[in-house]
């Protein structure tokens, strides 16, 4: 869990060496041992019905069994594919609309009211509407995830393009840059930190609602569906195994995607993280 901690500590500590490092790892594992032990005691003591509160060994066992049987990886891959395709939709349309809004007053006046009305409504509230209009299944799920996660992308791209200094644009123009060069050499690089922030927020949002969308949209595979289906048969162990996978995916997204994007922008543009 060392990874988890460095995410949040601002001004990441330099990598400690030797015993210092083991101490750090031990320190991070300790809270999990405490919580795990409490869980075990409660489970063994039979405070709650066993089916509803399985021991950690059972959860681990079903995790291993499901992984070997290939069921868990299949669910996870379907979920990831859905996440990526939804996010790709959001990235393409979101950046497109956002940049257009930033560049043209007309586009801004047209899109801004629509976006400001649709954005504050919680994403899942659209779910039944999408299911009615586009049917149950994958298409609705991906479309909904894309639709919902495009709002932060649009807002941030728009702000980013607007934040490009007027003086850069004018100096590039006076040095003879045409529209295309102006766009690719001045506006896009200038807006990129914002756009990346928007993409990061969009991906986070997509991830947050995807699980719920899978529960509602009756897709054949997917982690959300797995844990929701497990409820019917009181398979709490399967449910907890599924939640573990969800947590791992969430943590890796945080660590390997969001963190990387942030490092990249912060380092490259010399912006300081709060």
């Amino acid at each position, binding site marked *: *869990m060392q990874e*988890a901690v460095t995410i949040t500590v601002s001004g990441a500590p330099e990598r400690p060496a030797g015993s210092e490092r083991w101490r750090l790892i031990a320190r991070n594992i300790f*809270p999990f041992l405490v919580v795990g032990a409490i869980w075990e005691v409660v489970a063994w003591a039979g405070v709650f019905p066993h089916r509803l509160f399985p021991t950690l060994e059972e959860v681990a066992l079903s995790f291993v069994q499901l992984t070997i049987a290939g069921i868990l990886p299949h669910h996870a891959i379907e979920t990831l594919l859905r996440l990526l395709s939804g996010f790709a939709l959001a990235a393409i349309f979101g950046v497109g609309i956002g940049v257009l809004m930033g560049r043209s007053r007309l586009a801004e006046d047209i899109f801004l009211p629509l976006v400001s009305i649709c954005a504050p409504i919680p994403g*899942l509230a659209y779910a039944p*509407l999408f299911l*009615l209009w586009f049917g149950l299944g994958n298409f609705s799920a991906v479309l909904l995830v894309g639709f919902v996660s495009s709002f932060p992308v649009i807002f941030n791209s728009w702000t980013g393009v607007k934040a490009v200094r007027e003086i850069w644009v004018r100096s590039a123009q006076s040095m003879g840059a045409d529209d295309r060069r102006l766009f690719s050499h001045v506006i896009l690089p200038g807006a990129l930190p914002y756009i990346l922030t928007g993409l990061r927020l969009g991906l986070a949002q997509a991830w947050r609602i995807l699980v*719920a969308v899978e529960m509602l949209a009756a897709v054949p595979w997917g982690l959300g569906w797995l844990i929701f289906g497990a409820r019917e048969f009181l398979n709490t162990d399967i449910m907890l195994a599924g939640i573990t996978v969800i*947590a791992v995916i*969430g943590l890796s997204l945080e660590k390997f995607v969001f963190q990387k994007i942030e490092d990249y922008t912060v380092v490259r543009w010399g912006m300081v993280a709060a």
Partner: protein
Amino acid sequence: MSENGRQMRSMWRAAVTLAVAAACYEAAARSGYFAPALLPTLETVTKTLVSMLADGSMIAHAAATMYRVMFGFFLAVVVGLPLGILMARFQRVENFFMPLVSALMPIPSFSLVPLFMLWFGIGNTTTILIVFYAATFPMLFNTWSGVRSVNPIWLRAAGAMGADEHKLFWKVIIPGAFPFIVTGMRQAFLRCWIAVVGAEMIAASDWGLGWVIFDAKEFLNTDIMLASLVVIGAIGFLFERLVFGSIERATVQRWGMTRAAKG
């Protein structure tokens, strides 16, 4: 063109856009290409909204949702705020809780809905707990980074002027961290609002805006669905702008601190 004139033109265009969008929708709804049950006219939606408001059912649903949001939000503040302050002030507390928080935070709140349904059944308890789970982390994190970011010079200056631990806390740390705390509350409320709708849909009880939308799907009552969407949007907007906007103006802006934690 003056800035004022430009603003006028923008508002004009916004009005035109909305009118055109509404007209397009209306045309599609009336064209008969789509089933009227799936694409009700704006007139029907308005009528449904008005009648649901008039017979009090919409208000009852909204009240049920607000009760869950407020209860969950309250719990999140009660847990997140002190824990965030403790974590920022005491290294030991931080060492113990930070790994747990970092591991729990990336789990989307909705993925706990089925588990909580098994444990606590369908209804208020589950929804409130989901809301609480969703809102605690932004609250906690913003408080934590707010208290940590209090300028050490202020602490030392106050200490040098003879402030005791108690005064230091109330007069320096809390006001210094306040912009972050307000941001945390704002984000937490936003999360609550998102979580409550989803939790109500999945862990359906008998009341609540999320439940109405989902229930309306079963009977193809798209008009009820759209009417509830309007109400959900309006309440969210109202809270975001009026409540948190005015809290921010009354405290943070008046104190001249507009820094904010990033989401």
